[in-house]
C-alpha cells in the first residue's frame, strides 16, 4: 500500500520571547491509502496541533520547528508555497473540526459555503457544482438536500451541521480527511451516526482518515491503527486490536483502565494521578510521563526512552521494554476499594 501522509521527526514549537518550547516533539506517523488512523490523548497532549500543522493552520506564535510532513511521498507540506498549500487544502487534504456550531460562517447560506470549496479548486459551472452538492448531501443523509442548501447555519442542528462539514470536506474527493474531535460536541445518539457516516463515505471515496480524539471508544469504533500521544510525543503506536488487547505503555494502560465498562460496576474508575505537564514544565531530558508513572525508574528521569518494538508493528516508548524479555508488569488498579 502507498503512503498518503508521512510525518517524520516533527516538532511544533511555541515561540515565546524568542525562545522555542517544543510542544510537540519527534513525532512520527505514517498513514496509508484508505487507512483509518487515530490519534488519542488527553487535552494538552498536542494532538490537535499536530493535525493543524499538516495544513499549516497553526495559530499565531506556534510553528513547525523541525521535521517534515510528506504528502504522497513527494510534497513536503512544511515548506510548500502558500499557493500550493491553498491547492492542497480542501482538495487533497480536508478537515472537519470539533465544534460544528462555530465552524460555519453564520452569514452565508450552506450552498454558498459548500460551493466555495469547489470554486476555490477550479470548478466554474454552477450546474456542475449544484449537482455535486446534491449528490453528496443525499449521501450524508439529508432527506431534503435542496432545503438544506438554502438554509443558514443557525437553522440547522449540531448533527446536521457536522453532516454539512463532512459533505464539504469530501466534495473534492480528498486523499486524506483530518477529523479533529468530530463528535465531541455532539449528542451521544448522534455521535455514532456521524462516525458511521464518515466511515462509509471515506470508504466510498477512497479517502484515508486521520481521526483526532480523546475518546478511546471512538477509536475502537473507527480506526485501524492508533497512536497514543502524551505531552507532545507519541508514546505508543499499534493496530487498534493490539492496543486494546495488549497495551504496552504505562500511560496507555492507565488510559484503558480509566474507561467505564458496563460489565463491572463495582470497580471504582481509575484515574491517572496528576496532569499533563505544560510545555513550560517539560524538561528536555527523561521520559515525559515519568512524573505520573507508577513504574518510574531512575533511568526514566535521565534519558528519554527510545521507541521499542513490542510486537510486530507495535511500538512503545518506555524503558520497561528494555529489560529482560518477558518482564511483565501489572497496572496498579484500585481493587482494594471495591465494595
Amino acid at each position: 500500500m502507498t503512503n498518503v501522509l508521512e510525518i517524520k521527526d516533527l516538532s511544533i514549537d511555541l515561540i515565546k520571547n524568542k525562545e522555542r518550547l517544543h510542544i510537540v516533539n519527534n513525532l512520527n506517523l505514517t498513514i496509508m491509502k484508505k487507512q483509518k488512523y487515530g490519534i488519542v490523548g488527553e487535552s494538552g497532549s498536542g494532538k490537535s496541533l499536530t493535525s493543524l500543522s499538516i495544513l499549516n493552520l497553526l495559530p499565531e506564535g506556534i510553528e513547525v520547528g523541525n521535521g517534515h510532513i510528506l504528502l504522497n511521498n513527494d510534497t513536503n507540506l512544511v515548506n510548500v508555497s502558500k499557493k500550493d498549500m491553498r491547492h492542497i487544502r480542501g482538495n487533497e487534504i480536508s478537515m472537519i473540526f470539533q465544534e460544528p456550531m462555530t465552524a460555519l460562517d453564520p452569514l452565508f447560506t450552506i450552498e454558498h459555503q459548500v460551493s466555495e470549496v469547489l470554486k476555490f479548486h477550479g470548478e466554474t459551472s454552477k450546474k456542475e457544482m449544484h449537482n455535486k452538492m446534491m449528490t453528496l448531501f443525499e449521501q450524508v443523509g439529508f432527506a431534503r438536500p435542496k432545503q438544506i442548501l438554502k438554509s443558514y447555519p443557525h437553522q440547522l442542528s449540531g448533527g446536521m451541521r457536522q453532516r454539512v462539514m463532512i459533505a464539504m470536506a469530501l466534495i473534492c474527493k480528498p486523499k486524506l480527511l483530518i477529523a479533529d474531535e468530530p463528535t465531541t460536541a455532539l449528542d451521544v445518539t448522534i455521535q455514532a451516526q456521524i462516525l458511521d457516516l464518515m466511515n462509509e463515505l471515506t470508504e466510498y471515496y477512497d479517502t484515508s482518515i486521520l481521526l483526532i480524539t480523546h475518546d478511546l471508544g471512538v477509536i475502537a469504533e473507527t480506526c485501524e491503527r492508533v497512536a497514543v500521544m502524551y505531552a507532545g510525543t507519541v508514546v505508543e503506536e499499534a493496530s487498534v486490536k493490539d492496543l486494546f488487547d495488549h497495551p504496552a505503555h504505562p500511560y496507555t494502560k492507565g488510559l484503558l483502565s480509566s474507561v467505564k465498562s458496563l460489565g463491572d460496576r463495582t470497580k471504582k474508575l481509575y484515574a491517572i494521578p496528576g496532569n499533563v505537564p505544560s510545555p513550560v514544565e517539560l524538561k528536555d531530558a527523561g521520559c515525559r510521563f515519568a512524573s505520573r508513572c507508577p513504574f518510574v525508574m531512575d533511568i526514566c528521569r535521565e534519558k528519554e526512552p527510545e521507541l521499542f518494538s513490542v510486537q510486530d508493528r507495535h511500538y512503545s516508548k518506555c524503558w520497561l521494554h528494555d529489560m529482560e524479555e518477558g518482564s511483565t508488569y501489572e497496572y496498579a488498579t484500585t481493587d482494594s476499594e471495591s465494595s
Partner: protein
Amino acid sequence: MFTYVIRRILMLVPVLFGVSVLIFLVMRIIPGDVAQTILGTDATPEALQQLREDFGLNLPLHIQYFNWMSGVLTLDFGESMRTGKEILPDILSRFTVTFELTLISALIAWIIAIPMGIIAAMKRNSNTDFGVRIVSLLGVSFPNFALATIIILVLALVFSYSPPVGYVGFFEDPFKNLEIMIIPAIVMGTSMAGAVMRMTRSSVLEILMQDFIRTIRAKGAKERVVIFQHALKNAMIPILTIIGLQVGTLLGGAVIVEQIFSLPGLGQLVLTAINQRDFMVVQGSVLFIAFIFVLVNLLIDILYAYIDPRISYK
C-alpha cells in the same frame, strides 16, 4: 420585511413625541425673553406684552404645545419669531448643506478608516498596527476646531491659499461648492475616521480568531476571500453601529465646524436661534434633527437584518 419597517416607523412616534415635549419645555424654562431680544432693552412693558400676545406666549402651556403640534403634524412648522420666514423651508435648505458635508466627511472617513483598520487587524502588533492605532487615537482625541484652525493656517501661511468665503450651492457651481466643502469635510472626516478605524480593527481581529475563519482557510480560500468576503462582512455590525451614530449626529449639524467655515448648515441655524431665543425655530429644528437621527438608526437596523440572517424581521 415591509411590516417590520412599518412597525419600526410606528415606534418612532413615541420617541419623537418625547423629544417634542422635552424641547418645548426646555425652551420655556431657560431664562431669556424673545420679546426682549427683539425689541431691545428700551421697549415699554406694554409693547413687550403685546409682542408676547402676538406670539401666543401668554396662553397656557398645553394650549401653546397643542397649537405648535397641530401645525407640525400638517408639516407647518410655523414662522420664525425674528424674521417672520417660514421655518420648514429654511430647515430643509440648511439641511442640504449639512447633508452634503456629512456625506463627503463620511466618505473620507470610511475610505481611510476601513482599509486601515483591516490592515492593522491583519498585521496585529506590527509597526503598521502600532502606527494605525496612534493615528486613530489622535483622530478621536484631537479637537475639531484645533485641526480646522491648523489646516487654515498652514494653507494660508505655507501655500498662500485660503478657501473661498461665502457659501455657494452645489447646483449653482459644483466646483466652487466642493472647494468650499472639502476642507471642513476633511476636518470632520478625520475625527470620524479615528473611531471607525478602532472599531474596524478590533472587530475584524475578533472575527479572525473565530473557528469558521479556520474552516474557510482549510477549504483553500485565498487570504483576500477570507478577509473581504467573510471577516469583513461579519465584522460589519459593530462598525455599522458606530457609523450610524456618527452619521446621525453629524446630520444634526456640526456646530463648531460650520461656524469656523461659515457654512449655513443646521448647526448654525440652531445656534443662532438659541442665542436669539427664537422658540419656534429651535423647537422645529430640534424636532427635525431628532427625526433624522432616529431615521438613520432605523436604516442601520434594517441593514443589520440584511447582513445577518440571524436577525429576523419579525
